[in-house]
């Protein structure tokens, strides 16, 4: 079967007028036609199969939203090829509209002043959702994330977490084949994130909906996505499984220990002391080392008041990828598939 999403050498630049500093400079800016070219998405290629749940990860401004806009047809690529559901998105935007759903975390698609239920009633007509489908979906969404209690509250009075549940339901009401979730977890607390994760996992597993989940936090998508694509400065740095990524570019974890006393010298079996700050110490240890053994070893010899385990941050992983690949990142990011993260 043909892939659900294809991007080949997808490129998008933005031109902004070059600004000259100072008062005279701003006058100069008015009359010159010099531009700064920003490569928001820089020759990106990947393909996503039907039913996949892919994490699209990158720091802010990496090009995630720009990619999603091109995949949904609201932005025309500068060059390169893009196809969603067998259609070229910007040429068939309205045709595609019925088959995709989207949540843009920062922008609401709900009717702000109306009770939540009204947004669903409007969208039901807008997308021509049959009565049975509407009933079934509303029932499912309620079972998943408890929508019923929110339905009569005006959207503006919902908390962020509640509103995001509504946004998700709104994006899925018309049974789209593909959903694009652009930072749907941003700003949510632990409970709300859990709600959203369950929602996303369920619609992917039970309905086979293809999901593209953009996030700037790797740990957010870790439990959801088998495959992740990491993008930074418009270029794909990695496309493959999370396990592979960790094994290759984030082989270490960090154990942060708060000791009860200020020991002059601290050692731990199988871990390297990388940092000390008074009674606190940071141990870096290999992913293959069982943290339980490490902790047992430490607590045998020292008094411990607190412990925490830290996974490498996205920035650290990205740094790791850059360090592991002295060649230009573009050379590596040609086609999609598993484990393309090395030279």
């Amino acid at each position, binding site marked *: 079967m043909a892939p659900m999403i294809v991007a080949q050498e997808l490129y998008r630049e933005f031109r902004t007028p070059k600004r000259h500093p100072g008062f005279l400079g701003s006058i100069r800016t008015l009359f010159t036609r010099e531009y700064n070219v920003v490569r928001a998405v820089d020759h990106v290629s990947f393909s996503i199969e039907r039913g996949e749940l892919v994490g699209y990860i990158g720091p802010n401004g990496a090009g995630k939203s720009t990619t999603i806009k091109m995949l949904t*047809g609201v932005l025309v690529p500068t060059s390169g090829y893009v196809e969603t559901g067998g259609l070229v998105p910007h040429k068939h*935007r309205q045709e595609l509209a019925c088959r995709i759903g989207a949540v843009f975390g920062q*922008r609401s698609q709900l009717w702000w002043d109306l009770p939540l239920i009204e947004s669903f*009633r409007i969208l*039901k*007509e807008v997308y021509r959702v049959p009565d049975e489908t509407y009933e079934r979906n509303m029932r499912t969404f309620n079972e998943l994330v408890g929508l019923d209690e929110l339905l009569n509250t005006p959207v503006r009075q919902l908390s962020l977490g509640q509103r995001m549940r509504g946004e998700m339901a709104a994006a899925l009401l018309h049974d789209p084949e593909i959903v694009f979730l652009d930072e749907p977890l941003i700003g949510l607390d632990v409970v709300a994130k859990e709600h959203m994760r369950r929602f996303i996992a369920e619609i992917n597993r039970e309905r086979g909906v293809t999901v593209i989940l953009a996030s700037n936090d790797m740990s957010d998508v870790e439990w959801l996505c088998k495959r992740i694509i990491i993008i930074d400065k418009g270029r794909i740095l990695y496309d493959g499984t999370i396990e592979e990524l960790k094994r290759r570019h984030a082989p270490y974890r960090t154990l942060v220990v708060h000791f009860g006393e200020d020991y002059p010298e601290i050692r731990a079996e199988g871990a390297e002391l990388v940092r000390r700050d008074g009674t606190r110490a940071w141990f870096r240890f290999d992913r293959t080392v069982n943290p339980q053994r490490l902790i047992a070893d430490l607590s045998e010899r020292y008094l411990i008041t607190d412990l925490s385990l830290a996974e490498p941050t996205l920035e650290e992983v990205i740094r790791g990828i850059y360090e592991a690949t002295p060649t230009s990142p573009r050379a590596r990011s040609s086609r999609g598939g598993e484990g393309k993260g090395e030279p």
Partner: protein
Amino acid sequence: MNLRGYLKLAQAPFQMRLAYRTAVLLDCLGVILRIYLLKVFWTAVYGGGGAVEGINLPMMVTYATLASIQGIVTTSYVHWGMQRRVRDGSIVIDLIRPYGFLRSLLASSVGNSFLADGPVAVFALAVSLLFINLQPPASLAAGLAYLASLILAIAVGFFLYVLVGLVAFWTLELFGFNNIFEFLSLFLSGGLIPLWFLPPWVRRIAELLPFQSLAHLPLSIYIGKIEGAAIWMALLKQVAWIGVLSAIVWLIWKAAERKVIVQGG
């Protein structure tokens, strides 16, 4: 998208209005106050004198009162919604929906005029009928032509305000442009001061612009200042403006859409 979808979109403004009941109440009070003050003003201006330009005081007060009432439905806020969409980027949401953006604006604007503003206008009319000596239309034909002309005025208003809203795609803000527009519209529509009181050169300019379709034409038909074959001319002018404005709106929207999806701004 089908008609039912647009009808549903048209209902939303009404429901939103109900969410802000105090605002509706203030709307009602505001228009009553305006009607009252204009009556006082015109009574003072006429000062017991006779007809001016064939219009006597009761006719003038009728003109001013109806101008205030129909202004409720011919004034649209569609441009502010457009500005918000451009500024906060939620225009993207409209672009991934299976409807035409302009048509969705038309739907919500129709909903606004008839469902949300309509009741306020009816209330204002009822109060005016009780406390102001409103004159009936010049004739039955004039009354019917007035209703037709009013519908056309709402359409002209919609396109004018969408045109203002489209400016936001380039400037991101509308306050300056909107001020100029509101000022021109206020004077050149005849909604505040009938055009026949203005100097001839201003009247000639007004003749060339679409604003008189908003108030001057329908109200002049009502009070009989425009009569006979001239009524048809007036209605034709409005229809022509709807044609011209809708074409301009469509062209500029295509440019705005290109700007959003091609230039990405």
